[in-house]
Each structure stands twice: as structure tokens, then as C-alpha cells.
């Protein structure tokens, strides 16, 4: 945690941490506290007075069908994005790990989407799936007779944002899986091969279990990404619609607070989300501590 040999100075260390601590207190801790406080009040329509209502904002939220539905949407969205992007990335990483020739070229073509902003990923897929002129919507119609219209069909809209969010995340997962695969000792795999284990069997009995620290780490990171960083994808494309079909929890905080101006409810939603992130961060860090001994 700290050096054995340190410098001695009464005020310098405080000066050095001051900028970071100032930003943290003003723009992180204080707003978070404000959200916590506001979540216990109900404000009148004109914003003149507010009443302390204990947990009414929370009980109202959990009685609200729309909010519960948003929980469900978030869960479906998060799990689908995580599963899709991780499984595709794993397949690609396993393949890239086998290739000897042109490995760098392949890697180059696979990692660049990391740099594409979620909002742009959303817009790209929004265009390709556009019901009247999107090229994929056209192909779906022509080949499978699917009538694609995410403007009216909620499930299709959800599928659209899931694909866009997963597409953007593949590169990230790919790089971590590749690093994980490269750290597995070759001798283990060779030994299994000598014992006559087929490649499939070697993968499921040796490679996949040894990858589990990476897999678990990515699982948490991807869920956090899907729950929080995908706001831009939804805001830039479907706007939570149609009929709230793509309104995930972070989008709901925004729409309740900024569009609907219901501050108490928005703050209560913020608090619920904070609890969620804190729980996920704790899981992530506890796991990392275990990985150090691994």
C-alpha cells in the first residue's frame, strides 16, 4: 500500500491531492448526496416548497408498473448484450489465437470498433435497420419476409439497440480474451493433445476453465457497460420508445427528471442505480483481489 521510504512534508501532500479531491467532492460526492436527500422529498408543481415524505418516492416507484417493466427491460438488454458480445468475442479470440500468419492484420481489423462512440454505433445500426431504406431491413424483408419496423414494434427496437451495443463491445472483450488465452501455458494443451483429447474437448476442459477469471471480469464489466454506458445508444436512436420498449433504467432517470420534471422520483431512481453500481463495483474488486493470488 505504501513505500517504506517516504518524504516528509507537512503541507505538500495535501496540496498534491487537493485538485482531485476538490473535483471529487464538488462534482461527485455532493451531487450524490443531493440525489439521496431529494429522494426523500416531494416537490410541489411550481417548485416553491417540498415535503419530507420518507420512502414514499421509493414505494411509489416499486408500485409503478412502468418502472418495474424498465427493470425487466434493463435485465433483458444487459444480459443479451453481455452474452452476444462475449460469445462472439470469445470465438474470435480463440480463432485469432490459432492463427500464425497475418495475426496482426486480423487483430487490427477487429479492435477498432472500441474507439467508436456508443452514440455513433447506435446511429450506424439505426440507419442499416431503417424500415424504409435500411439495407438490412431490405434484406430481411427480401430473404425471410420479416417486416422490420422498430418504430412500431417494441421487441424489434430492443433487438436493434442490443445489436448496436453488442457490436461496439466485441473489440473490448476480444482483446481481454486474447490476452487471457495467450497466458495459458502451451504445455497443458500439448499434454492433453498427446493424451488424445480433441480440440473441442481441450477447449471445454482446459482452456475455458482457465479463462474463467477473465470471463468473470468481463461479465461484470459488460453488465456495467450495458446498464450505464448505453444511454447514448438509446437516446440517439429510439429515445426509449416505442412505448417505453427500450427505456432502460438510466434512460428512465433522464426522462423522469429532465423531460418529466419529477425530481423526487428521478432522485429515487438515481439512488437505486447507485446502489446497483456500488454492488457491481464491490463484486468486481473482490474478484480482482482473489485473482492476484490465483
Amino acid at each position, binding site marked *: 500500500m505504501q513505500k517504506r521510504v517516504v518524504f516528509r512534508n507537512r503541507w505538500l501532500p495535501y496540496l498534491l491531492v487537493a485538485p482531485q479531491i476538490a473535483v471529487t467532492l464538488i462534482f*461527485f460526492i455532493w451531487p450524490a448526496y443531493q440525489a439521496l436527500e431529494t429522494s426523500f422529498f416531494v416537490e410541489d408543481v411550481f417548485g416553491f416548497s417540498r415535503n419530507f415524505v420518507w420512502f414514499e418516492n421509493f414505494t411509489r416507484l416499486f408500485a409503478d408498473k412502468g418502472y418495474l417493466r424498465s427493470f425487466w427491460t434493463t435485465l433483458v438488454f444487459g444480459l443479451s448484450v453481455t452474452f452476444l458480445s462475449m460469445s462472439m468475442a470469445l470465438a474470435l479470440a480463440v480463432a485469432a489465437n490459432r492463427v500464425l500468419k497475418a495475426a496482426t492484420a486480423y487483430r487490427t481489423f477487429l479492435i477498432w470498433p472500441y474507439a467508436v462512440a456508443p452514440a455513433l454505433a447506435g446511429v450506424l445500426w439505426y440507419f442499416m435497420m431503417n424500415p424504409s431504406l435500411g439495407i438490412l431491413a431490405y434484406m430481411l424483408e427480401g430473404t425471410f419476409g420479416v417486416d422490420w419496423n422498430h418504430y412500431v414494434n417494441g421487441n424489434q427496437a430492443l433487438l436493434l439497440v442490443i445489436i448496436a451495443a453488442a*457490436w461496439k463491445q466485441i473489440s473490448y472483450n476480444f482483446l*481481454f480474451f486474447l490476452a487471457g488465452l495467450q497466458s495459458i501455458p502451451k504445455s497443458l494443451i500439448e499434454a492433453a493433445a498427446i493424451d488424445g483429447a480433441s480440440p473441442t474437448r481441450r477447449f471445454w476442459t482446459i482452456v475455458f476453465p482457465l479463462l474463467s477469471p477473465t470471463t468473470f471480469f468481463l461479465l461484470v464489466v459488460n453488465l456495467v457497460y450495458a446498464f450505464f454506458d448505453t444511454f447514448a445508444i438509446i437516446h440517439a436512436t429510439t429515445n426509449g420508445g416505442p412505448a417505453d420498449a427500450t427505456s432502460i433504467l438510466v434512460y428512465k432517470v433522464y426522462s423522469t427528471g429532465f423531460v418529466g420534471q419529477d425530481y423526487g422520483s428521478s432522485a429515487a431512481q438515481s439512488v437505486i442505480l447507485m446502489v446497483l453500481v456500488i454492488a457491481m463495483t464491490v463484486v468486481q474488486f473482490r474478484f480482482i483481489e482473489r485473482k492476484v493470488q490465483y
Partner: protein
Amino acid sequence: MVENRPLAAILTHVVLIAGIVFLCFPVWVALVASTHPGEALQRSPIPMWFGDQGFANYSQLLREGVPAAGGVPLSTMMLNSLFMALGITVGKIAISLISAFAIVYFRFPFRMLFFWLIFATLMLPVEVRILPTYDVVASLGMLNSYPGLIIPLIASATATFLFRQFFMTIPDELVEAARIDRAGPLRFFWDILLPLSRTNIAALFIILFIYGWNQYLWPFLITTDQDLYTVVMGIQRMVNVGEGVPIWNYTMGTAILAMIPPVLVVLVMQRLFVKGLVESEK
């Protein structure tokens, strides 16, 4: 490769090529669409090969922007994005370096409290505290300003941890030597720690630049002045044009322009990027 299986070798390449096609196809479609006149993109199927309007479209975008979406020139938006990205990157690196230095190389009361405060920023993404943070920035008079775009985002637990981790690996003998030579803490920081941290700073720079450039929600909340729009956020105004239909050739051109700088950074500095990504996440 352990054994020779031609079928598996072929399958490997098929998987990789399929993956690349899946990743590149959306950008291909966007690139092609951005080179056509607006009329070509009004009915299905849209062309899959380049048109001849590429130059005209891009110069219109860069010089005048899209009139239906406010007509802010993309050159202005991209410059704003650049300022914001660089400001966030430099700010995060600077304040993280010095706070990691303080936490590792000094013993002082409340040291652990400060450490946990910085750690707490990881758990409070902007998305979950939108309204109160907006209020704070508004009451500080920082709406519609570069400081407002940059400063609230420059606290960084990740960068601080990365530097702390790295400082811990630097041998204590260096500090002892510096002290024998009567170098003070600042001299040690400047002449020894900074040069040693160069690679880490460079790797982190790439990751943070991408993070800064791709900000969406924050600029969207605090800029109402068109002259301060960033490009990643600005595209949303072209997609959601209310009654009208988005002008797709311009929208796709904007998407392409908005992704060029960060993608270029990743491709050109690939090795550093991979190092920065894998290490900053530990």
C-alpha cells in the same frame, strides 16, 4: 498448433473473416451513403458502391453543417470535441499523477480517507446523478463553457490506481538516492518519477482521449449554445429532426467524421493502446 487439422485451419479463417465483415459492414454502408446525393438515399435498396458526391458532401458538412439540424459547421464541432477530449485527458493524467504521488510517497493524516474518496468516483457515473450534477454546474455558472465540459469529468480513480500501482514497483533505492543527493519531493517527482512513467502516461493518454472524445450525455446536458456542440453529441440532432426525415448522406458523413480521430489513434498506436486498455482495467 498442436496437430495438423486442415479443416480446423479453414474454419479459423472463416470465423475471423466473418467477424471482420460483421464489424466493418456498418461502417462500409455509412461510408458509401456519405458519398451519394440525398435523393439516392430515399428509397430502398440503397446503393452499395460509392457515389460521386463524396467531396461535395464532406465539404458542405465541414464548412456549413446541416441546415435542418441547426447548421453548425462540423469543423467547429470537431474542434470542440478535440478541446474537450484533450482537456479531459490532460486534466485526468495531471491530477491523477500528483495525487498518486502524494498517496504513495507521503504519510499524512486522512491519507486513506482521500484514497477512498477517489475510489468512490468509480461508483458514481454521470448517468446516475444527472440532475444534481447539472444543478452544481449551473450554480457555478459553468454551463456553456469549456471548463464546464471538462472539469467535472477529470476526477479519475482508474488513472490514480494505475499510477499508484506503477509507483509501487519503483525501487525504494531511488528515493533513498534522491534524498542522499538532497533532492526534495518535487524534484524527485519531476526528474525521476515523470520520466519513468512516460510509457504509462502515453498508454493512458490513448484510452482517455477516446473516453473524452466519445462523451455524449455530459455535453448534451450542459451545452445549449450551438458553438459549443461536440460532434458525437451533435449527430443526435441530425437523427432526431422531429417531423422531417433525417438527411442520411449528411448524417452518415457526420458519423464517419466523428469516428475518424479516435479510430485513427487506436490504429496508429495499437501496441500502446492494447497495453493501456489491459492495464488500466487491471
